[in-house]
C-alpha cells in the first residue's frame, strides 16, 4: 500500500507548524509592523470626521469593523484607487479576463466544439487561472541575437500604452481616471504608440516571422489610424467638445449612432483592424507566419502582451460606447438603497444593527447614479465586445492589399461622408444650438 508521505510523523508535523508560526510572528513584529508604520507615516492620511487619521487611529479603526467605512470611503476618493481599482486597471483587467474566457467558450460553441471544459469542473471556469499560472511559471526565453533592452521593454510598454488608453475612459459620471479636456486627442496620441511598440518588439526579436508580422501590423495600424480619426470628427462636430465625459453626458436623450451611423460603422471596422482581430489579423496570422510579431515572446512576456491586447480591446469597445452608444446613460433601473438602514439601523427582532458611516458613503461615493451608470456602461461595453468577437467565428482572413485598399479608399471616403452628414445636421439646425441638444 502506498501512502503519500511514508515518513510522516505527527510530532514533526506539529513542530514544523509551530516553527512556522513563531518565525512568522517574529518577522512580522520585527520587520512588518515597523514597515507598515513607516509607510503610514509617509503617506498623507485623510481627515475623517474632522480628525486626522494618524496610524494609531487607523489601527484603532481597524480593530472595529464598523468604523472602517470612513477609511474605505476616503480611500475610494483617492487617485490611487481610481488608477488601480475601479475605473482604471483592475476593472479593465477584470473585463479583459472575462473577455478572454467568453471568447474561447463562444468561439468553441460557434464551431461546434466544447472549448475549455475540465478546469474547474463547471464549464472550464478556471481555465483562465490555469493559463495564467502556466504563463507565469514558464521560462522566458530570449533569442540569442535579440536586441535585449528593447525586447524586454516592449511587452511592458505595450501594457503601459493600453493602460494609458484605459485611463481616459469615463465609466460613470465623475468616475474617470484622467478627466482631461482633450480626452479624444489623448486617445489619438495613445493609439499612435501601439505601432511603435509593435514594430520595436518585432524588430528586436531578430527573427523573420516577428519582423514580417511587425511590418504588417505597422502598415495596418498606421493606415487605419486615419479613417479612425476622421470617423470620430463627426461626433466632435455635433458635440463641440473633445472631453470624453462631456461627450458621454451629451447623449442623455439619444445616442449619436442614431444620427451618425456611417461614422459608427467606419469606427467599428477600423477598430477591428487596430485590434488585429479577425478578419484583419494579418500581423498574427497563425497559418502563415506562426504567431506574427508575438512569435519569439515566451512565458509572461507573451502573457503581458495578451493582457495589453485585451485591455486595448476593452478600451476600444468602451470608446465606441462613450462616443456612439451614450456611455453611462440609460434608464434608472438600479433601485435606491433604503436609506433608513443607514440612518436608523437594521431591525432584526429585538436586535438593531447600526453601521456607522454608511450614510455618507452611499450618498457621496457609491451613489445610485454611479451604480446605474456603471451597469449600463458595462452592459453596452459587453455588447460591443461581443460584436468584436463574433467575426472571429464567421469570417476568413483577408489579403494585405485588400486590407490597405479598404482602409485608404473606402473607409476614408465613408469617413468624409460622415463628416458631411454631421455638418449638415449642425447647419440644418437639427443638432447643436437651437436644435435637439
Amino acid at each position, binding site marked *: 500500500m502506498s501512502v503519500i508521505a511514508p515518513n510522516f510523523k505527527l510530532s514533526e508535523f506539529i513542530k514544523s507548524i509551530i516553527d512556522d508560526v513563531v518565525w512568522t510572528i517574529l518577522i512580522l513584529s520585527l520587520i512588518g509592523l515597523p514597515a507598515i508604520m513607516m509607510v503610514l507615516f509617509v503617506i498623507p492620511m485623510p481627515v475623517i470626521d474632522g480628525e486626522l487619521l494618524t496610524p494609531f487611529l487607523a489601527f484603532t479603526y481597524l480593530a472595529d469593523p464598523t468604523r472602517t467605512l470612513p477609511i474605505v470611503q476616503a480611500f475610494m476618493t483617492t487617485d490611487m484607487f481610481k488608477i488601480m481599482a475601479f475605473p482604471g486597471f483592475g476593472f479593465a483587467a477584470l473585463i479583459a479576463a472575462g473577455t478572454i474566457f467568453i471568447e474561447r467558450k463562444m468561439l468553441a460553441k460557434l464551431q461546434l466544439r466544447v472549448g475549455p471544459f475540465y478546469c474547474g469542473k463547471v464549464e472550464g471556469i478556471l481555465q483562465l487561472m490555469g493559463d495564467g499560472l502556466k504563463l507565469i511559471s514558464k521560462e522566458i526565453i530570449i533569442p540569442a541575437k535579440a*536586441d535585449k533592452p*528593447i525586447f524586454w521593454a516592449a511587452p511592458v510598454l505595450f501594457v503601459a500604452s493600453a493602460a494609458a488608453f484605459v485611463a481616459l475612459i469615463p465609466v460613470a459620471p465623475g468616475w474617470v481616471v484622467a478627466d*482631461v*479636456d*482633450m480626452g479624444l*486627442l*489623448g486617445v*489619438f*496620441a495613445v*493609439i*499612435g*504608440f501601439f*505601432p*511603435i511598440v509593435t*514594430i*520595436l518588439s518585432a*524588430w528586436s526579436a531578430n527573427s523573420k516571422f516577428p519582423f514580417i508580422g511587425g*511590418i504588417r501590423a*505597422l502598415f495596418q495600424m*498606421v493606415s487605419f*489610424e486615419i479613417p479612425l480619426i476622421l470617423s470620430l470628427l463627426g461626433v466632435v462636430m455635433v458635440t*463641440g467638445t*473633445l472631453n470624453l465625459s462631456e461627450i458621454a453626458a451629451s447623449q442623455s436623450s439619444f445616442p449619436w449612432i442614431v444620427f451618425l451611423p456611417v461614422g459608427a460603422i467606419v469606427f467599428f471596422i477600423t477598430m477591428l483592424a487596430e485590434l488585429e482581430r479577425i478578419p484583419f489579423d494579418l500581423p498574427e496570422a497563425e497559418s502563415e507566419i506562426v504567431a506574427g510579431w508575438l512569435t519569439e515572446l515566451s512565458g509572461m512576456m507573451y502573457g503581458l502582451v495578451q493582457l495589453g491586447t485585451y485591455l486595448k480591446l476593452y478600451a476600444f469597445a468602451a470608446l465606441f460606447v462613450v462616443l456612439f452608444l451614450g456611455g453611462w446613460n440609460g434608464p434608472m433601473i438600479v433601485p435606491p438603497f433604503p436609506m433608513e438602514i443607514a440612518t436608523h439601523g437594521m431591525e432584526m427582532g429585538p436586535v438593531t444593527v447600526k453601521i456607522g458611516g454608511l450614510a455618507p458613503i452611499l450618498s457621496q461615493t457609491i451613489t445610485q447614479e454611479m451604480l446605474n451608470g456603471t451597469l449600463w456602461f458595462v452592459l453596452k461595453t459587453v455588447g460591443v465586445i461581443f460584436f468584436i468577437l463574433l467575426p472571429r467565428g464567421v469570417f476568413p482572413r483577408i*489579403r494585405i*492589399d*485588400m486590407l490597405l*485598399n479598404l482602409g485608404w479608399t473606402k473607409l476614408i471616403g465613408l469617413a468624409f461622408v460622415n463628416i458631411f452628414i454631421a455638418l449638415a445636421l449642425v447647419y440644418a439646425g437639427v443638432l447643436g444650438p437651437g436644435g435637439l441638444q
Partner: protein
Amino acid sequence: MADAVFLALTVITIGSAIAALEMRSLIYGSIALMGTLGGIAGFFFLLDAPFVALFQLAVYVGSIAVLILFTVMLVKRELIFKKIEDRKRKFAGIGLMLVVMVSLGAVFLDSGIKTITTDEPAVDFRDIGTDFVTYYWPALILMGLILAGSVTGALVLARREDVENDQRVS
C-alpha cells in the same frame, strides 16, 4: 514642481537629441529622436497648450518617428553610409550649432518674452478653431491646398503602371 519638470524635460530633450545624433545604432537613434519629440510635447504641456502637445504626440511621435523607424529598419546601414571621422567637421558643427542657438536665443530674449504673463489660463481650442476660420482663413485654405496637392502627388507616385487592371483589387 514645474521647475523640476522643466529641468527633467530639458535633460530628456537635449540628451536624447544628442543621443539621436551620436548613436552608432540607427534604431536606437530613432528611438532617441522619439524621446526628443516627446520632450517637446512635454514642453507644450508645461506651456498650457495641451492641444498642440497632443498633436505633437499624435503626429510627430505617432507618425513621423514611426516612418523614420520603419525606413531605418529596412535599410542596411553599411550600404548607404560611409563613416567619416573628422574632428574638424565635428567641432565646426558644434560651433555652428552654438552660433545658431545664441542668435536664436538673442532674438527670443529681445522679443519681449520676459514681460509675458505666466498665470494665464490655457487657450481654449475652440478659439483656435474660430481664429482659423475668421482671421487666418487664407492660411487655412493655403494649407488645405498644399495638403491636397501632396496627397494627389503621392497617389500619382504610388500608382504603378506595370500592374494590369485585372490584378488590381476592386
